[in-house]
């Protein structure tokens, strides 16, 4: 990307870039703005929306099976079934919002677990090198070369389905990337003068890691974690679709797609809407993580800011 930086990109590099400038540059980029609005809406739906929505996600009404979007209530009063109903007469919009809650919960707690586990191992490998490094990275290489979904399915088969097992299994299958990133960054910091200085000044190993290395890793790992929330949500929906993830009656987007399969010809909204919800969530998180990666990387940031300011002048 560096090659595409225009000569005046260097100016953006000089001096400290203010936070407001970075924020403004995010808002000026169309896809990023779209992603941020979408993420805000999804988080709102999962937290507040699911609570205040007039229909319940679990209330069945067999007289109201598979009704298309905008169907009015059974007695014609009150709030219509905005996005239709499922084969048990449950409100799709309510289930989608509860599904968002499940997805975000699995995504965020799974990423927290796998991120902490993976980056701890990565930092240890990079700091101590030698045998520790060999053992940890061998394990990373080994697991990374094995298909993750097969591993997750096999683990869930042994442990049995369930919400907590699901989160643990997802964390266990996706920790390697953090270990790789944390290790390679720690290795380069280990060579740098400020870490040498910290050691010479008498810091213990654990203190050097906590006070001098981990703070420098935070931003990159956060960007990675944002990407991984998307990947985690996709993985959860896949497992739930196959019947090994979230179990009914808990609403999950993957499960909703699976249940809509039998009604493809007659009730398009059953499969289409939850799939779109997954796509929107994952795409927004990916777009946002891309922009986040661009503004936190000093080299890419200059390109990004020049682009943004150019667009600001156009408008």
């Amino acid at each position, binding site marked *: 990307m560096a090659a595409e930086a225009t000569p005046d990109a260097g100016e953006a590099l000089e001096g400290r870039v203010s936070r407001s400038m970075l924020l403004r540059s995010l808002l000026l980029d169309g896809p990023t703005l779209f992603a941020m609005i979408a993420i805000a809406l999804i988080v709102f739906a999962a937290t507040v929306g699911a609570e205040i929505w007039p229909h319940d996600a679990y209330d069945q009404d067999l007289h109201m099976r598979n009704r298309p979007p905008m169907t009015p209530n059974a007695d014609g009063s009150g709030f219509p079934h905005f996005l239709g109903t499922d084969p048990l007469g449950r409100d799709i919009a309510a289930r989608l919002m509860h599904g968002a809650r499940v997805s975000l919960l699995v995504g965020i707690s799974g990423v927290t677990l796998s991120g902490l586990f993976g980056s701890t191992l990565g930092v240890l490998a990079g700091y101590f090198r030698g045998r520790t490094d060999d053992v940890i990275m061998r394990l990373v290489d080994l697991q990374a070369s*094995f298909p*993750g979904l097969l591993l997750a399915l096999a683990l869930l088969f042994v442990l049995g389905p369930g919400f907590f097992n699901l989160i643990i299994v997802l964390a266990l299958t996706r920790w390697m990337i953090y270990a790789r990133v944390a290790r390679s960054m720690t*290795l380069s910091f280990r060579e740098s003068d400020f870490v040498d200085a910290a050691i010479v000044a008498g810091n213990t190993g654990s203190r050097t890691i906590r006070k001098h290395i981990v703070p420098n890793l935070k931003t990159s790992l956060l960007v990675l974690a944002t990407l991984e929330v998307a990947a985690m949500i996709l993985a959860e929906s*896949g497992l739930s679709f*196959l019947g090994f993830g979230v179990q009914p009656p808990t609403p999950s987007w993957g499960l909703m*797609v699976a249940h809509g399969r039998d009604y493809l010809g007659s009730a398009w909204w059953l499969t289409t809407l939850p799939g779109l919800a*997954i796509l929107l969530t*994952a795409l927004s998180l990916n777009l946002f993580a891309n922009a986040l990666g661009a503004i936190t990387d000093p080299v890419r940031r200059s390109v990004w800011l020049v682009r943004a300011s150019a667009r600001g002048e156009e408008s």
Partner: protein
Amino acid sequence: MGRYWIRRLIQSVGIGWLVLTLVFLTTRVIGDPVRLVLGIEASHERVELTRETLGLNRSLVAQYADFIGGVVRVDFGESFWQKVPSLPIVLDRVPATLYLTSVALLMAVPLALILASIGTLRPRSFADRAINVFSLGGVSVVDFWLGLMFIMLLATQIDWLKTSGYGGFSYVLLPAITLAFKPLGRISQMARTSLADEMSKPYIRSLRAKGLSPKRIVFLHAMKNASLPIITIIGDELISLLNGAIVVETVFGWPGLGQLTIQALSRRDLPVIEALVFVVTVGVIGVNLLVDASYTYLNPKVTFGDESRGRRSNS
């Protein structure tokens, strides 16, 4: 050279042994194989009877010796479900999965390289940005939903498209397109980044000065030099295509390894699951060896003769 490959081979056998031991330990120690086979509802008498007939009441060491002996004789025992040796059941499914994944990859790789080249020829143009969002979309979409959407929207309109079963072009087209989306997105993004890296190097400038057309520069020169990271990600994609195959084969009723995985798991057919993990492990090791071999072919600078290769070199 020869010594390197011999060592790699020995290493591969070691990895295979490690994976199988992990499989043994997870199924026998973390999980109770009898419970896995019978489910939690089975009566106490039935559990004890099955434990005896399967030889699971013996010591772990005896069971392990039996298990490894079986692997050496390539015999994983009879499938509980079909009462025939489980390895042939698994091997029977390999061609179907290879067929499906190769068609998917043959669609994804050329298209991904073309998309990446278009972006590289006109950096930051509308086309470049649209391709970026499209490839992020390919990564963000869930394959099971995409497959169902194709069935719903295309197969109902176009008569000759088949949505289920095994066969020629009309059968393979929809599942292969579905399976191709994820590698398409990931390979095109990876190729775009590594092409951009190449384009910033001095030799490109001299080619430009020489008067070579941008197309020739990108396709003949930059592409060749960017091929190493691209090959790496294609290798990774070969493995994650297996993840996709589990889902896509289930959606399209394609009789491959993926469909067998879900069938074996839901029938709790332990010998088949073990044979499946064995076959996949062998396949994964084979793909990794192939990717490494193609490195030496594409870049004579890479030699595998000495110890300096691999992770240690970047420390």
